[in-house]
């Protein structure tokens, strides 16, 4: 469609990184506006104004992505833009927008809203950069940008000690994994002498397997694993999901995962494709696919079984997120070209449903309930609309047709089974994934059961739902349903984009 | 005769009427039984006419009907009437209205009762005229349910257990039979009696079983034996063949007497009919191998049942055991047909006589047993309770007619020459003496003991000093006399002129024996 730009000028760089710039500018605008509203930033109207501004920025960025984004790579191939990144970034931007919309629905506000919005925008910028990164340093910078913003955002509710505790824990674990990542990268540089992913691959083609390289890879994977909340690097997730402000939790759960998976896929395949090895049933060679497979197994098992025991819904969602990361790792492990496309589709659609879930939780909390099973009781009678939305979102996460969650999972499995020298390579992993899904069905149904069954019909103290929450949740539900029934437009575009 | 489907008419007319009756409200339909009687009589009259017509040219099965029913199983709706079927149709025609009339005074739920009787009537006719197993089984099973209910709902105390036992034994027997026959059908691809018999005579049957039924490497003989065993067992329970007779005495005892008439007169014949129709033509070669043990058991059964009859106090039970005994002779004869003849014409003639004897005995026993149980019912009715052998005496003085006619029937049962019971037994024994002498010798004792207990019965009940019941005991009423007299006459006439029946039977007998002649 558009010609590739090989950048030489700042103008070119600007045009390639258009969306990122727009978001940065928006953040600055927001900060400025918030300073002028110094006294009134804690009240709702002012906050909402800020959020609207942020949303405008997000919207513009999305527009640029959709319509006007040129393709190409920045000098030194540090940063690149392709069809695939376009779509993934679009997804991230949409999810970020939805998370911001969640914020619109919040009734009670914390101070320092300007910083809040700016940080969200910066985190998003970080994610976009992450997606486009093609160079180890770039990856690290983008990752840190996102991570630091998210650490602060997670602990934004300074008044509650548990929030700060969690944020601190998040920061510590995150810091450690960043260190791992950096150390891994340095080892890789040491072995290959390059930092750009394609250069690394070229370099490795002529080399034999080096134990130092393996060590580097493993350490890098540990770092990435933290980002995508794969077991056993997932410890931070339950606490953060539980205590972070809702928009933040939603952002972490949706957009940052999308970015994390995309970059993981690129890192592994672009950089170290020939060291992939294989774990197919009859054809076992050593390589990083084995590690990915192991991570996938651990995530699926630990995530689902831990979720079984939870009574707090946010923690349950966190553990189920771990499990979903496990499923997505199957797509990473798949040697076919369909793999990365299916992973992105999966995480994006999962992101939509998770945002919707957080929206529902927000409504629950703002009506004075805690986010646990008890407050779901007799939801059927307090708000039929909420129950319906809950049902659709939960069933989508459980992977029941005709919701999109099923299709995305199906796509993932097909990708895993497809395209390699041995057909049906990763069949055992698929079997495990299906088994894990069965386990997950148990706790998902428990949620629905609580909403439908318990409680008596005689005290329907109905829920107050404001317009923003209503629109948000309805949007996500509509998205889940429509994408489930008519996935073709998006799916085909995504698949084609990655196929190039 | 015109081309109306006469057999279907006689079957379905009472069947459908009977089913309708089952749904009628008891209080509001007191006239129902008259209608039912009319239907029953009409059916019987038509049946008799059919028998007469069929007899005229007995070498060809008459009144054939065929209609494609379930092609995927190879099953047609096919009826026909040959000599043997005709005989049984005649028997049915005679006994059913008799039993119907004998039930006139039933005390509750009349339409349902008569409905059951009518359904049995229709299904019996179906059983005896079916040309293939599917249809045979169809009617056979249908007859079980009303029989069960007749015992259960109108019987005397103790009926719950005995009716259930009857039902369970019968069902088990029929399922076992079904299993065996399905094996045959699976092997040959057909349910038709004629087709399977033909395969058997060609010697093909064994091969078909071997090739079509997969059972690892079991020797062919074993497989055939199992299938034969299933079929034999299934039918044997119905006959009943000792040691599977346990259901009979209780059932006969607790059923209302008219029902017992039907049970002993007709339904027990279904088993024997099945053995003749299915067992003999299809497994002639297998019979010699299992002959000895089965014959031994049969003979023991004959003796045992006779002794058991002698030991009964209730005369209903006595007659029940006597039935087992008489049917035992038929079984003995049937098994004797399995003796290898090796082309010996003499033995073939013996076999012919045995088979003729069996058929005649079936008819004779049907008539005699019905009459006897009718009388038992009459006695019960007058005495108001079960008849025990030692409680009465000298009834001859107050009821001479009854004594006379019942005595005649008893003598027919003993086998007095000149009455129809003799011919059948004689032919059977004559043949068996020639084929399996030792069996005949032992079985004669059975005859002896039968004579003993039957005469003892006569003596105890009718002769001798008058017991306390004699005072109020009434003699035969006009109705009784009308009902009983045709049968008494038949007993005498058929005793002297058995060829009235035999003429129609000969072609069938010859056909079967020629297959058994090896």
């Amino acid at each position: 469609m558009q010609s590739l730009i090989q950048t030489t000028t700042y103008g070119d760089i600007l045009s390639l990184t258009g969306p990122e710039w727009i978001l940065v500018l928006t953040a600055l605008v927001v900060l400025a506006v918030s300073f002028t509203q110094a006294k009134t930033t804690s009240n709702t109207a002012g906050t909402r104004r800020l959020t609207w501004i942020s949303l405008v920025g997000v919207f513009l960025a999305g527009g640029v992505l959709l319509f006007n984004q040129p393709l190409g790579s920045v000098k030194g191939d540090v940063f690149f833009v392709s069809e695939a990144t376009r779509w993934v970034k679009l997804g991230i931007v949409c999810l970020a927008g939805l998370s911001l919309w969640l914020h619109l629905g919040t009734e009670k506000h914390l101070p320092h809203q300007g910083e809040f919005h700016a940080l969200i925008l910066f985190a998003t910028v970080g994610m976009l950069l992450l997606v486009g990164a093609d160079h180890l340093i770039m990856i690290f910078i983008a990752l840190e940008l996102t991570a630091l913003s998210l650490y602060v955002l997670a602990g934004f509710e300074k008044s509650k000690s548990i929030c700060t505790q969690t944020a601190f824990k998040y920061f510590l674990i995150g810091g450690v994994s960043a260190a791992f990542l950096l150390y891994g990268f340095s080892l890789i540089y040491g072995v290959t002498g390059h930092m750009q992913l394609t250069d690394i691959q070229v370099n490795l083609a002529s080399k034999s397997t080096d134990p130092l390289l393996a060590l580097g890879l493993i350490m890098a994977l540990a770092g990435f694993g933290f980002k995508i909340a794969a077991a056993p690097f997932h410890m931070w997730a339950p606490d953060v999901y539980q205590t972070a402000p809702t928009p933040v939790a939603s952002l972490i759960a949706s957009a940052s995962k999308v970015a994390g998976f995309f970059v993981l896929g690129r890192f592994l395949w672009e950089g170290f494709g020939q060291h992939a090895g294989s774990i197919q049933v009859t054809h076992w060679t050593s390589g990083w696919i084995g590690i990915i497979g192991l991570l996938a197994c651990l995530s699926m098992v630990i995530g689902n079984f831990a979720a079984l025991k939870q009574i707090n819904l946010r923690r349950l969602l966190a553990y189920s997120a771990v499990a979903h990361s496990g499923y997505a790792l199957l797509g990473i492990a798949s040697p076919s070209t369909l793999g990365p496309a299916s992973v992105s589709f999966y995480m994006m659609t999962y992101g939509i449903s998770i945002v919707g879930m957080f929206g529902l939780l927000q409504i629950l909390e703002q009506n004075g309930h805690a986010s646990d099973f008890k407050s779901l009781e007799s939801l059927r009678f307090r708000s039929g609309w909420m129950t319906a939305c809950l049902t659709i979102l939960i069933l989508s996460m459980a992977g029941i047709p005709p919701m999109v969650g099923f299709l995305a999972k199906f796509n993932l499995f097909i990708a895993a089974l497809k395209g390699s020298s041995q057909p049906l390579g990763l069949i055992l992993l698929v079997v495990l994934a299906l088994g894990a899904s069965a386990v997950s069905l148990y706790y998902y149904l428990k949620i629905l059961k609580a909403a439908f069954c318990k409680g008596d019909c005689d005290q329907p103290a109905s829920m107050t739902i404001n317009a923003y929450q209503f629109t948000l949740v309805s949007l996500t539900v509509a998205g889940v349903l429509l994408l489930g029934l008519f996935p073709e437009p998006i799916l085909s575009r995504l698949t084609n984009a990655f196929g190039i | 005769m015109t081309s109306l489907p006469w057999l279907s008419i006689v079957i379905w007319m009472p069947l459908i009427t009977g089913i309708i009756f089952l749904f009628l409200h008891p209080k509001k339909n007191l006239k129902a039984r008259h209608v039912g009687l009319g239907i029953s009589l009409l059916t019987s009259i038509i049946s008799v006419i059919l028998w007469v017509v069929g007899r005229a040219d007995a070498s060809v099965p008459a009144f054939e009907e065929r209609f494609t029913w379930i092609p995927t199983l190879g099953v047609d709706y096919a009826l026909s009437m040959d000599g043997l079927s005709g005989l049984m149709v005649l028997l049915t025609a005679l006994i059913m209205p008799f039993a119907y009339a004998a039930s006139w005074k039933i005390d509750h739920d009349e339409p349902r009762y008569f409905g059951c009787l009518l359904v049995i009537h229709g299904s019996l006719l179906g059983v005896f005229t079916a040309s293939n197993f599917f249809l045979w089984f169809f009617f056979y099973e249908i007859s079980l349910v009303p029989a069960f209910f007749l015992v259960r709902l109108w019987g005397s105390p103790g009926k719950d257990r005995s009716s259930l036992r009857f039902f369970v034994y019968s069902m088990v027997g029929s399922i076992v039979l079904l299993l065996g026959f399905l094996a045959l059908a699976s092997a040959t691809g057909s349910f038709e009696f004629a087709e399977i018999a033909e395969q058997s005579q060609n010697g093909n049957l064994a091969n078909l079983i071997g090739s079509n039924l997969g059972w690892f490497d079991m020797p062919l003989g074993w497989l055939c034996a199992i299938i034969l065993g299933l079929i034999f067992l299934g039918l044997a329970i119905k006959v009943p063949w000792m040691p599977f007779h346990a259901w009979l005495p209780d059932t006969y005892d607790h059923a209302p007497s008219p029902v017992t008439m039907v049970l002993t007169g007709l339904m027990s014949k279904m088993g024997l009919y099945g053995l003749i129709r299915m067992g003999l033509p299809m497994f002639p070669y297998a019979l010699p191998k299992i002959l000895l043990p089965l014959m031994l058991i049969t003979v023991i059964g004959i003796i045992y049942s006779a002794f058991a009859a002698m030991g009964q106090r209730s005369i209903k039970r006595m007659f029940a055991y006597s039935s087992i005994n008489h049917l035992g002779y038929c079984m003995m004869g049937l098994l004797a047909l399995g003796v290898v003849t090796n082309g010996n014409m003499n033995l073939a003639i013996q076999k012919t006589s045995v088979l003729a004897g069996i058929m005649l005995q079936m008819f004779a026993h049907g008539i005699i047993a019905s009459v006897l149980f009718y009388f038992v019912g009459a006695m019960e009715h007058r005495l108001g309770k079960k008849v025990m052998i030692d409680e009465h005496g000298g009834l001859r003085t107050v009821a001479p007619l009854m004594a006379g006619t019942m005595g005649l029937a008893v003598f027919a049962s003993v086998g007095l020459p000149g009455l129809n019971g003799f011919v059948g037994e004689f032919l059977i024994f004559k043949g068996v003496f020639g084929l399996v002498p030792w069996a005949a010798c032992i079985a004669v004792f059975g005859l002896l003991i039968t004579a003993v207990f039957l005469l003892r019965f006569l003596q105890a009940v009718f002769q001798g000093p008058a017991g306390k019941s004699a005072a109020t005991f009434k003699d035969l009423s006009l109705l009784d006399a009308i009902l009983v007299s045709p049968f008494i006459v038949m007993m005498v006439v058929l005793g002297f002129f058995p060829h009235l029946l035999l003429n129609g039977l000969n072609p069938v007998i010859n056909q079967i024996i020629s297959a058994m002649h090896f």
Partner: protein
Amino acid sequence: MPAKRPDLSRRLALVGTLISALIALVCAATYSPVDGNSVVDITKWNWIPSLGISYYLAADGISMVMVALTGIASVAAVLFSWNIEERANEFFGFFLTLIGGVYGVFISFDLFLLFVFYEIAIIPKYFLIALWGSTRKSYAAMKLVLYSFVGSSMALIGIMAAFVVSGSVSFDLQQLILHPYAPEFQRWAFPVTFIGFVILAGLWPFHTWAPTGHVAAPTGASMLLAGVVMKLGAYGALRVPMTLFPMGASIWREEIALLAAIGIVAGALVALVQNDFKFIIGYSSVSHMGFVLLGLLATTETGLNGAVLQMFSHGILAGLLFAVVGRMVYSRTHTRDLSKLETMQVGKQLPFAATIFLIAALASVGMPGFSGFVAELHVITGAWSSYSYLALMAGLGVILGVAYSMRALFTVFWPSASAREPEIGTPLSGLTIQEKTGAILLVTTSLVIGIYPRLLLDIIAPSLQSPLLKPLLDQSSTL
């Protein structure tokens, strides 16, 4: 629909099911295969081309029979659910969704679509049992759904594998069958897919969800679950693994057929010792489904004819039995314990129910004149030519069937005089017109098919000759 007006929901549900039933029956009656291709297309639309999925609805003879069954059974089930008062609108909502999913499975010829409908049918089952059920409803509902989900996941593996191995072209069944699958592939693909489907059909020993689930479910749901949804599994097994992997079928036939036969006998034995009326029927369903599976695995024409016929027959009769136990008896007596029912003189107070149960029991045992007899005959005849010893086991199962049916019949409806002490309780209310209509509808269907089975067999038999099933039958005849 407003929750406070149950009659509105009921009527609408009845109208809906009646209309679909009528359409179904009319289609079945007018179904006439064109030129030896027994599959008749209904609609086809390219749904997700990037995955080779199309929205493809079509029907062959077997589908039509199952669709007819669904029609009749669903109408009867709605009639027997007339007494649901609480949250009736939701009840019928879930009910109709379930029925819709079931219809969908039977007429999908794109395997992805088939699977989608199969899964859609799972969730309503959970709610129907968990909200309106009885004994241990939460546990039963969860168990049923999890077993169903695991089974369907196993089937999904097979479907996906077939798709990938055949080149990831299409999920259309008629396309997939064109690819020759390697014997080693079929060796594992067949049992995985087959077992996956027949878990839902109640294959021993994966059947334990069925009695628990069916007993816990409300009557209308039990009728559908035991009557139609279990058949989804058997139908799926015939449609997918037996069609796609005939070689695999011939390798594994004998072992799975043995399991089916064990199920027949084991189900009957367990039914014999039950003291809960509904559990007897629940286990008898397992036993009867064993017949279906035995017929399927005999893979002769007779056997397959019998299997489909038994699917139909048992669908009707199971519905009838559950209707009597659940609706006619339990909702009035509020107990299912046999020893308690013995004292309640149920037979005297509900003569219609007694008669219907008698007919249903006899029919399911295999009394000639009803559909069960013809079906069982086909199955056993088919079994004889494949596995004679299994035919004997099936016969044993029939005998045991007589035993437990009679035991139930007599203990509840006609207890012997000694056990009968009239209980001083409230007299039982008479049967409603809906119950009578539903019962008569089901009895008549069974009777009609029993007397003239060609109504169904004429549709089924040609489908067995179609290119879809021919490889399967050829496999068995070369043995």
